[in-house]
Each structure stands twice: as C-alpha cells, then as structure tokens.
C-alpha cells in the first residue's frame, strides 16, 4: 500500500486529514513538525506528503528544501496544506518542488481533487 506522511502540528488536523487520505487508499503516517518528518523520511520515503507551512522546530518550506537534498528525496509528491493563502507563498512552494497546494480550510473534495491534480490518484 502507498504511504502518505501527514505533517502538521495540530493533532486535530492530522486526524481529519488521516481519515480523508486513508479513504483514498493510502497508509497514513504522522509527524508534528519538519524535523520529525525528516527523521521519518530518512527511515522510509513515503510516496506522498501533506505538508503544513507554519510549525515549530522546522517549518514546512524548510523541510521541503531539506527533503529535496536527501537521498531519494526527489521521489515524494508534496502537497502543501496551509492557512497561508497568498501568491508569494504559493509561488515559493512551487519553486521548491511542491506539486499542489491546499489553502485551509479544506474538505475531502478539495483533498481528493488536489491529490488527483498531483497525479497521486
């Protein structure tokens, strides 16, 4: 089964996202910030990452930059999922290699449509 790592410092968001993404046929793992996510990826690269922007320890964009420098770090398809909803953030995410970008709040339709855009479905 394909794995999706959900990275968000809110346990509630992780829980909601987990339910939606499991329903789309992924196995879901969780991380509470960028550092935790990085440790997870070094152990085992997921196919997909749903990534928050603002988090303690290491934020989403720094995590993504670091991820792409890791061995095999080009492989995961990264979908941002954040309250940051201006073009500067979106363009920065795209230039760092994010495939899609979800602006919170989200629902299952949006996640599904964005995963489809990112060719994850």
């Amino acid at each position, binding site marked *: 089964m394909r794995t999706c790592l959900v990275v968000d410092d809110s346990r509630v968001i992780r829980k909601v996202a987990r339910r939606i993404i499991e329903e789309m046929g992924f196995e879901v793992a969780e991380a509470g910030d960028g550092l935790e996510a990085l440790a997870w990826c070094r152990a085992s690269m997921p196919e997909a990452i749903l990534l928050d922007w603002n988090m303690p320890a290491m934020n989403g964009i720094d995590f993504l930059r670091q991820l792409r420098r890791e061995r095999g770090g080009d492989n995961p398809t990264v979908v941002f999922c954040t309250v940051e909803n201006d*073009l500067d953030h*979106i363009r920065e995410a*795209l230039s760092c290699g994010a495939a899609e970008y979800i*602006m919170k709040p989200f629902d299952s339709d949006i996640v599904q*449509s*964005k995963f489809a*855009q990112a060719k994850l479905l």
Partner: protein
Amino acid sequence: MKPDEIEFVAEVCRAAAGIRVDPDKIYLVESRLAPVARREGFGSIREMLISARQRKEEKLLWSVVEAMAQGETCFLRDPQMFDQLREEVLPQLAVRRQPGHPIRIWSAGCASGQEPYSVAMTVEASGAGVLACGVDILGTDLSERALEKAQAGLFTQFEVQRGLPIQLLARHFEKRDELWALSPRLRAMVRWRRVNLNAELRGLADFDIILCRNVLKAMTAEARERALGQLVQAMAPGGYLVLGAEEALGDLPEGLAAAGPGLHRLDPAARAAA
C-alpha cells in the same frame, strides 16, 4: 412546502425554461428557494409564492426559476475533455481556418463563468497556431445574477480549489482581499449574453465548439429535444458539441458522432443536408 406549492414551482420552471422539477424532491426545492425568499424580503417560501402567484410578478418568478436552474460547476470539469480540446480539437480547427475567421466557442449554460474561463485558459495553453487565428468565446446563461458574477471574474477560495491546478491559479489569478480575481487578459477573451435555451435562439450561429454540459439533463424531454435541435443548428459544419462526460441524454440528433468524453462531432455533410 405543500404539494400545490411544489406543483406551482414546477409549472413555472417548465413554462419559462423547460426545466424539470421533481415534485418528490421537496428538500431540494426548499433549499434552493429559502435563500431567494430571504433575499426578496419574504418571511417564508410560502409568502413569496403567494405574492408571485397573485401579482404575477415576472421578476420574482424569474428569481424562482433561476434558483431552480442552478447546477454544480467547477473549473476544468471533466479534465480529459479539456486535454482533448487543447491537444487535438483546437489545433485541428486552427489548421483548417481561413485568415480573418476566428474559432467560435459558445459555453451555453455557463453559470458563474468557470466553464468559459476554463476554455479561455485551455485556448491560452493550446499553442501559437490557435492563438494566431483568434478565438471568440461566448458565455451565456439563463440567470442574470450568474452572469454578473461570471463577468466580475471574482471567485472564492473554495471555488478556485475545485478543479483548478495550483499552477493555473498562480498564472491567471491575483488575490483581492479574500477573493481571487482572474486576470483582465483572460476576462477579455469572453463575451457574455443572457440566453434562455428554452426560447427561440436568435443570432447564434456558426460555432465551432458548443459546450452545453449538464444543462440539458435538467430539462423536460420536450424542451431538451428542442434545445438540442437549436444547438445543432447553431453549429458550424464539422463543429463539436460537448455534453457532460457522464450525461446520458438518450438519442442525439442525427449527424452527431461520439469523439471523446462528452465530445460529439457534427458530420459536415449532415449539416449541409439539413
């Protein structure tokens, strides 16, 4: 709502726009009409309908029809169909073009504009050949309110996250307060007009592509057949009619052959004979 009120609504919709209202779907009718009643200053749907019925208020009746006509819409709905437009249909139309004759596209039943704007984005991405011959896009809808919204080119965060890839949002939109504004360049590619597909269509002819997706399925069989016939009359020889990818309408007029998801091509000879 009571049965006679539902029946009144159904009859008004049928007569004005050929729209079929299922009298069993009370919940749907109520959920569509409650906001209209509020907006027009009535205490309930019932009060609004009594006023509309007694005074035959055209404007109020139209508000009811427009609310019932509303359908689902989103950007780039049926993405495969838009891929085919971009990769195949538009370039082929461009090759056969004579100078000074732009490709003519009509989005019939365009609601709040996502469809014609999706067409504009697709045209933009379909290469120099298509852009060089020029493209006219017409968006029409029954609802004046929908057209006003469409023309403004302003969409909510929710709307731009349905169907639109983030790259296209970044390329074509700007943030304006809490809304997303489509670029003036793309907005300028679309003309707008109010058209009731249930009425006699005047001055609509020679379209190379007509999109009428998930609109006809909401009409009565009689109204649908008439509307389809008029749409075919408005097509250029060899033109394309695009229906919803999963819209099953039964028998289509003669001369239309399936050409992709929702796509139908009109045999050039069939039109000439008609």
